[in-house]
């Protein structure tokens, strides 16, 4: 071996060196078939009058649990925990080595926060609202006369923030390098803190992408809060039914669907060839691709909503009325795409954070077949939950005679999303 040692180059790629294996056709067909079968069965057999009661449903937890959860001490402890974690992240980012293989900061952002929020929110509800270090920062010096956020704003700023974060994660070059992360952090802080200085802590619920993301996913948590303020255990479908129809909900859901779909697309060799040979350059092309994926998800939903409006003139807000039923589909996409990232890179990031230099990635917990089953199950389960949620909403909003016909556009849309999702896993 007389070859000179290879030069030490900064690794210019994101977190995680391994991608999931493409789905084998067997699992893909099995998943697609199940999705179709369940959809048709649901159309014919599901109840004909609405059953979900949204935030009025649920079995109340014991009062002691509620007292403990609502105690100011618990809230303060969570605030301090969130602030401490954020400080740790910042210290690693600023003082640690500028190398994603040795610095836990990029993994903490892209894996522990972004992907870890999914299981955390699903189990415990909107956790980021409780941990958000920005809220802790604001609590130090709250604005004296906060103005209310205009109703028309809704969660639109958060949807835009989600799109920007997805761009940073999936498109931005050198997205694990310190300067890039610091710039992104500075922009995030500026937007959030300026807004909060004007509108108070309420601004975060509207504009913090992670808070909106966590709150949306928490709609599917069995742990929720009833309209009367009690902590309850409830069916995720009831929680989903209670999703507030705020402006920007459609945008946020379409961003989640589109960006996760783009993540699947970006593994495709044909798309890679397109990126590398595009005259625009790889980054602008990838940006266009990301925007196109989000636009495609949105246009499909828009067409579907337009058809619903044609079928039922009384339906004044077709877009927001059914947006909640896309959430489980987005969750299925997220689980299918990010499970192994969390399972492999999550522990590695923690190992790095506790001081192991150049930690080895642990072996994936599932073999190829197990992972394929998990991915297909996640997508099909999301599809089934979406179909059920849309059905219940349809029988509530449509006159009984037209309820079945009225679901058809949504039905077609969901099958398209699900088959598309499975297709992206094969590709």
């Amino acid at each position: 071996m007389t070859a000179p040692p290879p030069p030490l180059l900064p690794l210019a790629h994101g977190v995680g060196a391994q991608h999931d294996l493409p789905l084998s056709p067997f699992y893909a067909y099995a998943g697609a078939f199940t999705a179709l079968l369940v959809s048709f069965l649901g159309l014919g057999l599901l109840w004909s009058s609405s059953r979900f009661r949204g935030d009025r449903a649920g079995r109340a937890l014991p009062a002691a649990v509620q007292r403990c959860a609502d105690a100011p001490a618990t809230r303060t402890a969570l605030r301090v925990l969130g602030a401490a974690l954020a400080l740790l992240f910042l210290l690693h980012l600023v003082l640690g080595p500028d190398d994603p293989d040795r610095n836990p900061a990029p993994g903490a952002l892209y894996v522990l926060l972004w992907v870890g929020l999914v299981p955390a929110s699903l189990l415990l509800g909107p956790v980021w609202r409780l941990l958000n270090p920005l809220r802790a920062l604001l609590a130090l010096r709250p604005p004296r006369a906060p103005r209310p956020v205009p109703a028309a704003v809704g969660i639109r700023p958060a949807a835009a923030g989600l799109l920007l974060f997805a761009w940073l994660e999936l498109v931005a070059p050198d997205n694990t390098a310190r300067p890039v992360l610091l710039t992104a952090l500075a922009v995030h802080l500026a937007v959030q803190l300026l807004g909060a200085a004007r509108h108070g802590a309420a601004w975060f619920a509207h504009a913090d992408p992670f808070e909106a993301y966590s709150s949306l996913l928490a709609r599917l948590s069995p742990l929720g809060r009833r309209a009367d303020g009690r902590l309850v255990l409830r069916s995720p479908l009831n929680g989903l039914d209670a999703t507030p129809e705020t402006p920007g909900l459609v945008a946020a859901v379409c961003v989640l669907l589109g960006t996760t779909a783009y993540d699947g697309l970006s593994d495709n060799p044909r798309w890679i060839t397109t990126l590398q040979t595009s005259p625009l350059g790889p980054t602008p092309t990838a940006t266009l691709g990301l925007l196109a994926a989000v636009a495609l998800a949105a246009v499909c939903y828009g067409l579907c909503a337009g058809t619903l409006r044609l079928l039922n003139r009384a339906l004044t807000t077709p877009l927001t009325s059914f947006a909640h039923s896309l959430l489980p589909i987005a969750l299925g996409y997220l689980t299918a795409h990010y499970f192994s990232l969390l399972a492999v890179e999550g522990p590695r990031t923690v190992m790095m954070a506790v001081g192991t230099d150049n930690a080895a990635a642990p072996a994936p917990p599932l073999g190829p077949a197990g992972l394929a089953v998990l991915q297909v199950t996640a997508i099909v389960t999301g599809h089934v939950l979406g179909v059920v949620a849309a059905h219940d909403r349809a029988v509530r909003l449509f006159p009984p005679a037209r309820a079945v016909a009225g679901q058809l556009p949504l039905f077609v849309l969901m099958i398209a999303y699900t088959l598309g999702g499975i297709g992206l896993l094969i590709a």
Partner: protein
Amino acid sequence: MTTPAPAPAPVTTPTPTPVTTPAPGPATAPKATAPGLRRTVPAAAALAAVLLLALAGCGGRATTHHKPGTRHEQATGGNGTLLAARDESGHRLRELPAAEAPAVRAEVRPDTEGGWNVHLALERFRLTPESTGGAALAGRGHARLLVDGRETARAYGPWFHVPAGARTLTVRLYADDHTVWATGGAPVQTTVPLAASAATPSAPSATPSRTPEPPATPATRTLDIRVTGSTVTPAPSRVELKKGERLTLRVTSDRADTVHVHGYDREAALAPGTPATLTLTADRTGLFEVETHESGLVLTQLVVR
């Protein structure tokens, strides 16, 4: 500083000068004097005893033993009978009856970075690098490695690596006094062919006589990739590999760069116009990208199932 100045040490014991002959009963001397001199230093006395034992050489050894490197002539112990025959470099053979003679077997596996990993399976034989140069004792000694008939190295342990380019490997067992262990008049040795298929650095025709034999080890697939500007030919696609299969990537770039296989974290430097090869064993399942660092191009994807 040959005489210890302070009083507490057992002064009457031999000063720590190099001892070339075993001192008679060194262990008893400090024990006899220490209690008589000072009661406060039994620990120092014990330490001195240990030091002396170490200096006197390991007392448990056979009397034929010499310290490493103190003698170079071949000792004629009672272990085996010296034969008149010699090996290539002039070491005499030491004959043992077949039942007592050691045996050696070499297991060879190609390494993912080129060359071979060799494991020696030894019977009735122990590698004793610490006593090399001493007298011959049956069942002890070292191994010598002959690559393509030329001696290249000694093996003092059961595992070693043979660099790429070798065709045959002979492992021969030697006694501590550098005589060759033999039985039936022949040296105890084993010869294994090294398959020509294993990874070699892309030295063009380094050994013209080499004929690529059909590989004995797992099949190796070769993938040729050419990078011109930002164009990759063939266009990036997916290479399906079975777990355990070997793959050789031969990458030609029109500029200096580094090719990197993610997940396996293997890298090779690319010189403009010169093909660089990188061989790896696909021992992890998953989808892995092969990328260039400078230009940031994805060359291909490895799908290992």
